[in-house]
Every structure is written in structure tokens, then in C-alpha cells.
């Protein structure tokens, strides 16, 4: 961009193209005391966007509990940090890449994985596991198959290449996501607890260094690209899609970790969504400093890139760091060994301004505070409409058929097709593979295990956001508990529709309220997260989806539990109780074709009692077989345990849809040896926990009261059938591979 272009007057049209409202622009004029130039406008608009400023959500996020004795660093940094003993810390975070994945599923999902990995290793952690929570539209929607295929291939393509195992996640389908799929990626890493790196620029005169890939014109916003002046000779409309380069990311991980073993680094920050802009502003802000960058020093991929483009580019696989003065050569040698770009592009100043130089001229001079503080709104909200009432009658129960139908329905079908495309074993520490409750990854070189899970039940959140928010947290906590882990903390990814609609804002506010309640009672603080709003098409918003990522710790992986039945002749014990709640259940959806009714209530005190009791049994070695009861209820849970272990179960109880398929919360199924049953039941009584023997293990079939036998092989066939069959259908729209 020539200086002349940058000095061009800012018209209301240009302001609007940058997504700033007239009020917001007025606020910028006031704070600045003058009109911004084009580069400055671009930077302000990015920093004041919902994505960077959390302007609609911040007020509510602050209400979440974020502290516990084991929390080393809560929200506000690139990722959350918790103590896991032995002088180590786990660093983790979840992030959305929803819109890019809808536009270009392979690259969108791949770069989502790349982005979340960087948030974790930028803090000094070696990434040890990835998870991903996927929400697709109806399987019948013409785009769904193409999206599933591309997203799954993209997540695998990136994670497999960087060599971080993808060990868990979710994948469900609902017409509410037809026009807005959700791709939420989570990374967990491990670092020495005393060597955590923060995004802080300090030490006036310290060099600011750019490492990684070169900057291209990726992802520069469509609106801003519309201004012809930026790219007069562009012969084709430039794509705004970013392409991931996992090979470079792998090198970047190794190079950064190698440099982090020295004491060269003052602060380090990945270049995320808003690239060089947000990384430099955040570092300056956290260090209460200023930053001067020379655009001419930034490694670029294309000729003639303007400061505007350089600052707004979303090219992947780049990091920004502040080094101790005089240590540049040492750092450079490491990056050159890994064949990555390394450039000193500026220095820390005391101006508290973001100052940019290009061709010897100052092209931007903005106060950091104005950019970092951003805007904050208190958007009006209202309680969304209540769900449809439960239908007066449900088709008669047919236990066998209903179970087989549920097991082969999209949401409950085995996700093997998905996770077999992910290398879930690289690093050789995966001790609980995908397909169970929580995945467990051994902390390398120790006998400890990190348990991890992602959870959310959007149909509950849609029916009643407070209960849905509680349930998402409780289910994550329960999944960790079922593996024997002590739940430590939560990362979240709050996916909602348009916050400028009061009922959508209401969903957001109420889900957070429910989450906060659950996090408090369960001692399960939120240490990192991300918000994705405006997931809406043609005025239809997605179901509220506060995705929870949970992390827990197992002190001795020799005492870990998993869902597979491992022995014949054991007794199946149900922990927890309920009245057979069918509202908002998958059974109801299957039987009537629609969602109706309130979700099952979440009694948090009971949840905690039951979970603590189960964890105690696992820790004492009383059982190693445990599965939580969730989607599909008791019968589905029992079937999953039988399928996982290849051993049958004889279940006994009322032949009643509520008992069999109700989704009452706070429940677990355990298999315990005969001689431990009395002890367990007695201990449960004294702990005020409901517990009852509901069956026994053995044989090759699942039976109910001695009848309704279904072979485990038939269960498996039903459960494994849907996904591969669905995916073998025709796919349109190019770009396989």
C-alpha cells in the first residue's frame, strides 16, 4: 500500500466494510482524538471484533469460577495451566474453527488443529493429545457427507503429521447445524511446572522476533479485500481460506521447545486468528509496554504486500517472541537448524503504543490500551421459549428393536470410522484409546495418567439452558470419574447464535449460569476457553452448544477403569437413581421423531456424592470396569459395556421405557466380582449413594430378565454399521485428498 492509499479518507462505507458500527467508529475517533488511517482502521476493527474483544460475552465469562489450589494459570493466557504433580503441569485449551470448516472442511479443520496446538506449545508445553468435538447437520442434508469427510480428514491430516495423538472427541448430527457446523478442537500438553511461558513483552529495547512460516495474503477479510485499492492488479478474487502446513508446525514445535529449554525468551505468543495484530497488541498489553515493528522486516510470501495485509494476514504456523537482548544469534541458530524463518522485526518500547514502520515511515501509531481493552456490551437477553411438551403417548416399547435402532442411529453409532483416521497411539502413551468414556494418556515416564473428554448435550441446552449448562459440565466430570480420574479443570468452547437476538443471548447467559453452578459444586474450575458467536444462517441459530473439555488426573494407571466387561460372573451395579426421565432423550427422539420435554434435572450435590463414591471404589481396586450412563440410558450403557468387552450381560429390571432408556443424571454402571457386591452396597448406603445390583456378566448375549436376547456380535454389527454405510454414499464438491 502506498502512503497515499493509507492516507485516503475513511468513508462510512469503509468503516462498514470493516464491521464497525457507526457508534463504534465514533468511539474510536474519541479515544484516538483523530481519524485513523486505513492500517489503523483495520487493526482497530480486528481488535474490536467479537472474536478478539469478547465484547458480548466478557461480562458473563467473568462469573465462571476459575480458581482451585491446583490451578497455576486460569483464563487470560493462551491456555489454562494446572498442576499434575511430579513438578509437571498440564496446559490445555479448546477452540472453534466453525466457519472456516464449513467453507473448506479439510483446510478449515486442519488449521483449527494447528491453531490450538500453538496455543498450548506457546506456553512451553509439549502437546500430548488432541480431541475434537464435531457437530454436523442432518445426515440427509446434501452437504453433510462432504463436510464430515473433509473435516475428519483434515483433523487427521494435521494431527497425524505433527505426531500428536488424537484420542477423543464427539461427533453428532442435528438439522440445527445444517448451515453452521461446529468444529471445536482441544489440545492438552505437558510442561515442567516451573517453566511456563507467558505472552508478555517487557524490557525496553528487547528484540521482537518472528519465527515460522512466511506471511501471505491468507484469510484477509473479504470485506476489506473488496476495496480495490489494496490489490489493484489482482486478476482473480483471492481466496480467504488458509491452508495448513503441518510439517512446518511440527518443526515449529520442536524448535520452540528447544529454544524454551534455554533462557533466551522473555515472552512468546502464537499468531492466532488476528495474526500479527493481536499477538503484538496482547504482548504489549500484558507487559504494560509498547511495540515498534518494522513491516519491511516481516518475512513475506508474496511480493508487494502492504502493511495492512501483513498486519491482518491469518497465515498459519507463525509465532512472535520477545528475546533477551543479545540472545538473537543463539535463537536464530535453533530456528535455522529446523529450517524455519527467523527475523527480528522490531523491539519493545515504553510508549505503550503499537507503532508500525514501513519504508521508513510510520504507518500506524495506536495506543495499546485502546486496542486491548476493546469494547464491552451488556446485551439484552431473555429466557428462551420453553420446549414442546412431552407427547401424550409414545409408541409401545419393543426392547430389542428399540435398542438396535438406537445403537445404529447417527448419534449413538460407533465413531470408529472417524477415530481410525486419527493416529491415536503416536507418542506411545495412549493407555485408553478412543471409544470409551475418557481417553487416558500416560504422563511420559511416569505412572500417572491424564484423562480427557469433551462433552455437551445441545438438545438439553436448547430445551433448558441452565440445566444444559450444568449437564455439560457434569457429564465431563462424570466421564473423567468413570476412568478413575480426579477431575481437575475445564476448558470450554461456547458456540452460540447471534447475540444481538435476546433469546440467543438468553441461551448464552443461562448456559453460563448452569456451567458456573456445576463448576462450583464439583470443584472443577474453568481455566481456558473460547467463544464462537454468530453461528446463524438465514436467521436460524444453532442449538446452544457450550462445549466442555474436561481434564483429570489418575495417580496410578494400574488402577484405571474402563467400560469393557472383562470377566464373566461379575455383578453389574447401578450407582445413582432417577425416575426414568424421558424428556429430551434420544429414545424419545427415535420413537417420535422430535425432541420434546425438559431435560433430566442435574442434582449437583448428588452428582458429586455419586462420583466421589465411584472414584473411591476404583482407587481402592474394587472395580476396573465402569461406564457412565448418559445418552440412550441404562440399556445403551449396558450394551456398550458388553460390546467393548465381548462378553454378555444379563440385565434385570422393569421393562419400562423410563428405566431402560431414561437419561437420569449422575449414574454409573460398575462390574464387580461377586464377593465384593455386599461391601459395595453397604458402603454406598453409608455414603448416601443409591446403588443396586441390576444384572450379571457372562455368555455371549445381552438379555433382559432372561429374554430379549441379542448377541453381542449383533449389537456390534448394528453399532458399527451406520457410519461406514453412510459415508459410502455419493459426495459432491471437490477437493478430496
Amino acid at each position: 500500500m502506498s502512503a497515499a492509499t493509507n492516507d485516503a479518507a475513511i468513508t462510512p462505507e469503509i468503516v462498514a466494510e470493516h464491521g464497525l458500527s457507526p457508534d463504534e467508529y465514533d468511539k474510536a475517533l474519541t479515544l484516538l482524538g483523530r481519524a485513523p488511517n486505513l492500517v489503523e482502521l483495520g487493526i482497530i476493527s480486528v481488535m474490536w471484533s467479537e472474536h478478539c474483544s469478547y465484547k458480548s460475552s466478557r461480562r458473563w465469562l467473568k462469573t465462571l469460577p476459575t480458581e482451585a489450589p491446583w490451578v497455576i494459570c486460569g483464563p487470560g493466557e493462551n491456555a489454562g495451566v494446572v498442576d499434575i504433580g511430579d513438578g509437571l503441569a498440564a496446559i490445555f485449551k479448546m477452540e472453534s474453527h466453525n466457519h472456516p470448516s464449513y467453507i473448506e472442511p479439510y483446510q478449515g479443520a486442519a488449521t483449527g488443529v494447528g491453531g490450538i496446538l500453538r496455543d498450548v506449545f506457546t506456553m512451553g508445553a509439549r502437546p500430548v493429545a488432541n480431541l475434537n468435538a464435531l457437530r454436523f447437520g442432518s445426515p440427509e442434508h446434501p452437504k453433510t457427507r462432504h463436510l464430515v469427510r473433509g473435516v475428519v480428514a483434515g483433523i487427521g491430516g494435521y494431527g497425524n503429521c505433527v505426531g500428536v495423538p488424537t484420542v477423543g472427541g464427539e461427533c453428532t448430527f442435528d438439522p440445527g447445524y445444517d448451515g453452521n457446523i461446529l468444529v471445536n478442537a482441544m489440545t492438552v500438553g505437558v510442561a515442567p511446572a516451573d517453566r511456563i511461558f507467558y505472552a508478555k513483552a517487557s524490557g525496553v529495547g528487547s528484540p521482537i522476533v518472528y519465527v515460522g512460516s512466511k506471511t501471505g495474503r491468507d484469510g484477509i477479510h473479504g470485506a476489506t479485500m473488496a476495496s480495490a485499492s489494496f490489490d489493484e492488479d489482482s486478476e482473480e478474487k483471492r481466496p480467504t481460506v488458509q491452508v495448513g502446513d503441518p510439517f512446518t508446525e511440527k518443526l515449529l514445535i520442536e524448535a520452540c521447545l528447544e529454544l524454551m529449554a534455554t533462557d533466551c525468551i522473555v515472552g512468546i505468543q502464537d499468531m492466532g486468528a488476528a495474526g500479527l495484530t493481536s499477538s503484538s497488541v496482547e504482548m504489549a498489553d500484558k507487559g504494560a509496554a509498547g511495540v515498534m515493528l518494522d513491516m519491511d522486516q516481516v518475512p513475506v510470501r508474496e511480493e508487494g504486500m502492504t502493511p495492512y495485509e501483513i498486519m491482518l494476514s491469518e497465515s498459519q504456523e507463525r509465532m512472535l517472541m520477545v528475546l533477551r537482548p543479545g540472545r538473537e544469534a543463539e535463537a536464530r541458530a535453533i530456528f535455522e537448524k529446523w529450517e524455519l524463518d527467523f527475523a527480528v522485526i522490531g523491539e519493545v518500547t515504553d510508549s505503550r503504543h503499537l507503532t508500525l514502520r514501513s519504508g521508513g515511515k510510520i504507518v500506524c501509531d495506536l495506543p495499546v490500551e485502546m486496542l486491548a481493552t476493546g469494547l464491552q456490551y451488556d446485551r439484552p437477553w431473555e429466557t428462551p421459549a420453553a420446549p414442546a411438551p412431552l407427547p401424550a403417548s409414545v409408541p409401545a416399547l419393543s426392547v430389542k428393536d428399540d435398542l438396535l435402532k438406537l445403537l445404529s442411529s447417527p448419534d449413538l453409532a460407533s465413531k470408529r470410522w472417524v477415530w481410525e483416521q486419527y493416529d491415536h497411539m503416536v507418542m506411545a502413551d495412549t493407555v485408553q484409546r478412543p471409544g470409551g468414556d475418557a481417553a487416558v494418556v500416560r504422563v511420559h515416564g511416569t505412572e500417572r495418567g491424564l484423562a480427557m473428554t469433551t462433552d455437551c448435550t445441545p438438545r438439553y441446552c436448547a430445551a433448558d439452558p441452565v440445566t444444559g449448562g450444568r449437564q455439560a459440565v457434569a457429564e465431563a466430570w462424570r466421564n473423567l470419574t468413570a476412568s478413575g480420574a480426579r477431575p481437575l479443570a475445564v476448558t470450554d468452547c461456547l458456540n452460540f447464535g447471534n447475540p444481538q437476538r435476546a433469546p440467543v443471548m438468553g441461551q448464552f447467559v443461562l448456559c453460563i449460569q448452569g456451567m458456573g453452578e456445576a463448576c462450583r459444586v464439583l470443584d472443577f474450575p474453568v481455566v481456558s476457553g473460547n467463544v464462537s458467536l454468530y453461528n446463524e444462517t438465514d436467521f436460524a441459530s444453532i442449538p446452544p452448544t457450550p462445549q466442555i473439555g474436561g481434564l483429570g488426573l489418575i495417580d496410578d494407571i494400574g488402577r484405571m477403569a474402563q467400560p469393557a466387561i472383562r470377566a464373566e460372573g461379575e455383578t453389574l451395579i447401578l450407582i445413582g437413581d432417577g425416575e426414568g426421565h424421558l424428556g429430551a432423550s434420544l429414545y424419545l427422539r427415535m420413537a417420535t421423531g422430535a425432541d420434546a420435554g425438559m431435560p433430566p434435572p442435574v442434582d449437583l450435590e448428588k452428582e458429586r456424592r455419586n462420583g466421589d463414591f465411584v472414584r473411591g471404589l476404583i482407587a481402592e481396586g474394587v472395580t476396573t470396569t465402569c461406564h457412565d450412563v448418559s445418552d440412550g440410558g441404562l440399556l445403551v450403557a449396558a450394551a456398550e459395556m458388553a460390546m467393548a468387552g465381548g462378553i454378555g450381560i444379563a440385565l434385570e429390571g422393569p421393562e419400562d421405557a423410563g428405566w431402560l432408556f431414561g437419561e437420569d443424571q449422575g449414574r454409573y454402571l460398575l462390574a464387580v466380582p461377586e464377593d465384593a457386591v455386599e461391601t459395595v452396597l453397604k458402603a454406598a448406603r453409608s455414603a448416601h449413594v443409591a446403588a443396586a445390583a441390576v444384572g450379571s456378566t457372562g455368555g455371549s448375549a445381552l438379555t433382559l430378565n432372561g429374554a430379549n436376547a441379542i448377541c453381542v456380535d449383533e449389537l456390534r454389527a448394528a453399532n458399527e454399521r451406520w457410519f461406514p454405510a453412510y459415508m459410502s454414499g455419493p459426495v459432491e464438491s471437490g477437493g478430496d485428498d
Partner: protein
Amino acid sequence: MMKAKVHITLKTGVLDPQGKAISHALDSLGFDGIEDVRQGKYIEIRLAETDAETARSKVEAMCSRLLANPVIENYSIELE
């Protein structure tokens, strides 16, 4: 019978990690003067079709519906 030769290339400005890596590897093999490498796909389709116009419009449709990813790729078609 006709043969269609389809070239699928990345749009200008789209990062090509493969091309970048190839260029780098050629460099380290000692080949000098390499300014840029871009990798694309080359697809040959044999069609039971005799009319060139029909063939072309068919292959056009194949490209836009399946073979190329319109978000990041361009394509070109030659018929023989």
C-alpha cells in the same frame, strides 16, 4: 472415445506446502536457480464420447462438482 486431460492447480496466493517443500528439497540437492515450485494434480479421463462439445461440458461439470475444490483450486481442461 475421447481423452480429457485435467489440470488442477492452486489459486494464486494459496499456500502450497508441498511445492514449498519440494523447492526446499531441490535446493538442498544442490539445484540452483529455483524460483518457485507449485504442485497440482493431473487427471486423465477416458470417455465413451465422440462429440467434443458434449465431452467438454461433461468434464466441466465433473470438475466443478467433484474434481476441483472451487474454494482454493482452479482447473483447466484439454480434450484429445
